[in-house]
């Protein structure tokens, strides 16, 4: 994986704004003959645009992961819907929506009227959203990865789109076992068996991505946001730690045989626009995070709930050879970060973990979470802020 040798490199967490016509094709379940040509051209465009915005390590904007609405927070994981066998939809559970997953949340109790009025999702939780597609999904049989052809196609499309564009490296995102085990399970005897089966299945996708020469990014918000969803109301710290330790084992199981230096691991505390007052502090899980067999760790650090946590890295040493990819611009506000603020955030971390070990990134995917015009403006200031930081750090 490229590191910031000589200058601060930039990347982002994955999701970028889809063009309206691509959203429409997905929404209308257009035939492959109509979808594929547009998907291909849209991916070529989004790669060029990332390069123009000063992003060094690019991806396909997650365009190959179906998003059907302009505001949508869930496509990063709902894509597995089409790539795993063993699931059925339970209409009763689907009717409960997100409530079925978040019943143990202290924040949702404390901010009940906020969540009842809107929930920080805007229209992203509405019918037709990617999240809504996952509500009710229940494991009722043996899980198998069936997405080989799809991921091969994603890889091929990305490879051809990268031709002739000057970037440092490209990555492909894939979901973590911890995230998938949020879906209800009726088949496996224990949550552990269930998670282990998911890890075995998703390994196939991880392997395909890395074998194709791309950097694999594993998206694992669940590792930190499940504290709030399942454990916070009871204040069950020990239960959460035990759960999280197992999830790290599971993802490492899925990564067996995959070279660490081709893997980056993303955590965030969930991208919905809520108070996030119950987020588990990074310092309470950082010891587990660095056990994940990935070279790069992508961590939210560009919003008011987690910005102070750069200090965590003064006490917890980033292991030698690893990279930190802090969020220095965020989906959490419409205001566009000032480039000097972006530079300040980068420099602070560079001074703690070493400038060559920092790749500047976003808190979470920007696509579907902020207006497209804002998303692109934020990527541009990320590039600008990285240049300012480089000037300061290599003078």
């Amino acid at each position: 994986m490229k590191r910031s040798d000589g200058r601060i490199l930039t990347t982002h967490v994955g999701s970028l704004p889809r063009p309206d016509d691509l959203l429409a094709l997905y929404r209308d379940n257009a035939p492959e003959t109509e979808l594929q040509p547009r998907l291909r051209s849209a991916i070529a465009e989004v790669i060029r645009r990332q390069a123009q915005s000063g992003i060094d390590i690019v991806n396909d904007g997650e365009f190959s992961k179906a998003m059907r609405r302009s505001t949508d927070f869930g496509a990063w994981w709902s894509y597995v819907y089409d790539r795993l066998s063993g699931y059925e939809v339970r209409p009763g559970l689907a009717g409960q929506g997100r409530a079925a997953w978040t019943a143990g949340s202290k924040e949702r109790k404390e901010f009940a009227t906020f969540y009842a009025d809107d929930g920080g999702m805007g229209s992203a939780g509405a019918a037709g959203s990617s999240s809504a597609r996952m509500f009710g999904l229940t494991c009722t049989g043996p899980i198998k990865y069936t997405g080989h052809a799809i991921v091969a196609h994603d890889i091929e499309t990305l490879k051809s789109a990268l031709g002739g564009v000057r970037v440092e490296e490209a990555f492909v995102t894939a979901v973590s076992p911890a995230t998938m085990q949020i879906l209800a399970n009726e088949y496996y005897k224990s949550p552990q068996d269930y998670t282990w089966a998911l890890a075995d299945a998703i390994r196939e996708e991880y392997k395909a991505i890395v074998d194709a020469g791309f950097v694999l990014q594993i998206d694992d918000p669940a590792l930190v946001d499940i504290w709030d969803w399942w454990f916070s109301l009871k204040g069950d710290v020990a239960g959460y730690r035990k759960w999280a330790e197992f999830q790290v084992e599971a993802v490492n199981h899925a990564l067996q045989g995959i070279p660490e230096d081709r893997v980056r691991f993303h955590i965030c505390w969930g991208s919905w626009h809520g108070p996030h007052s119950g987020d588990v502090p990074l310092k309470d899980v950082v010891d587990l995070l660095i056990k994940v067999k990935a070279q790069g760790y992508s961590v939210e650090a560009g919003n008011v709930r987690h910005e102070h946590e750069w200090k965590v890295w003064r006490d917890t040493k980033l292991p030698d050879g690893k990279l930190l990819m802090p969020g220095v611009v965020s989906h959490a506000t419409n205001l566009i970060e000032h480039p000097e603020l972006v530079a300040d955030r980068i420099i602070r971390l560079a001074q703690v973990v070493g400038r060559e070990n920092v790749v500047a990134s976003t808190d979470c995917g920007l696509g579907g979470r902020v207006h497209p015009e804002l998303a692109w403006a934020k990527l541009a200031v990320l590039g600008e802020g990285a240049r300012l930081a480089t000037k300061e750090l290599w003078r």
Partner: protein
Amino acid sequence: MKRSTDRITTTHAGSLPRPSDLIALNRARAAGEKRDDGAYAECLSSAVAGVVAKQLSLGIDVPDDGEFGKPMAANYDYGVWWNYAFARMDGFVRAESVPESQHKKSSVADLALTSVRNRRDWQKFSEFYQDPESSGTLVGSAPRRATRRPVCTKPIRYVGHAAIEADIANMKKAMAAVGVEEGFICSVAPGSFARGENLYYKTEEEFVFASAEAMHDEYKAIVDAGLVLQLDDPSLPDNWDMIDPEPPLDEFKKFERVRIEALNHALRGLPEDRIRFHICWGSWHGPHTTDIPLQDIVDLVLTVNAGAYSVEAGNVRHEHEWRVWKEAKLPDGKLLIPGVVSHATNLVEHPQVVADRIVRFAEVVGRENVIAGTDCGLGGRIHPQVAWAKLAALADGARLATRELWR
């Protein structure tokens, strides 16, 4: 004004979430429905008592009346802080129709404010601003409806004496009930008020000075009552974005200097140490890429005859500007009230983020000269539950900062 002599004290920028019964009454009154003035006065008075007590219970040291006397008729509304004053003025009539959104262009010799919809940030991000879901990252947003704006058609005169006396009485009663010594009331600055349409005065300067003359009565009433006066003047920074094309800085400063002269004229005879001056770059939830840097106007800000300056510093567009105070020396005896929590995001600031922000300012201007504040009013701009949580985080952060700064 109280300073942070032995700990970091806290305040906020003014507007707080109104209770739903008060909003309902405001809505009915705005629609011209049943006007039981006695019931309204009672509802307002008890709401103010409630909000002062609530601020204290959340750890706010210098409270206000939440701007409850400025009638907000909807849950989300960003404009009451200035348009309340029309009801307190003689000289305005409501326009016959909704005005066309005029795109006034400026020349170097003649700077003019264009309409909101033609702000430079709006032009740069026109798709975002025209998208009905553009509040995007925030819960709730003020409806973007065009209204029939008041137009100045004859000499301006302040006629709001009863209204401000009622505000003062409600505030003093509420303060006495909880035993707090210092409280403030907000009032609009002439430069921010006189952005309405003027058909009477020959020049915009005359319009601004006439507004200043009129507002003097409200300023004096607040100070004479022993309350701290907060002047709200976002126009000082945000006029920059309303001038198209971007003007030369010195011309802009000339334009603003007139407005500050008018303000200082309105403040004549009032003791500086009872006055705080609030600027922000406009509280709408937009990209704000065309905000003028604080560095470019800080010298102007410091010419306002106030004892304290309240400045946005808790959002991603202005957070880095704490450094401005390394160069621009805060004059001796004055106070800085930086925004350390903000309406700009639904996420509730972590108390440690709040403390880090306070400590940075304290190290530059001196701990005793910093009062922790908010970027802008929280009421009407963010969900009420989030607003209260942010005030609590502000107080928690101030306690952490105190521990660090007085150890």
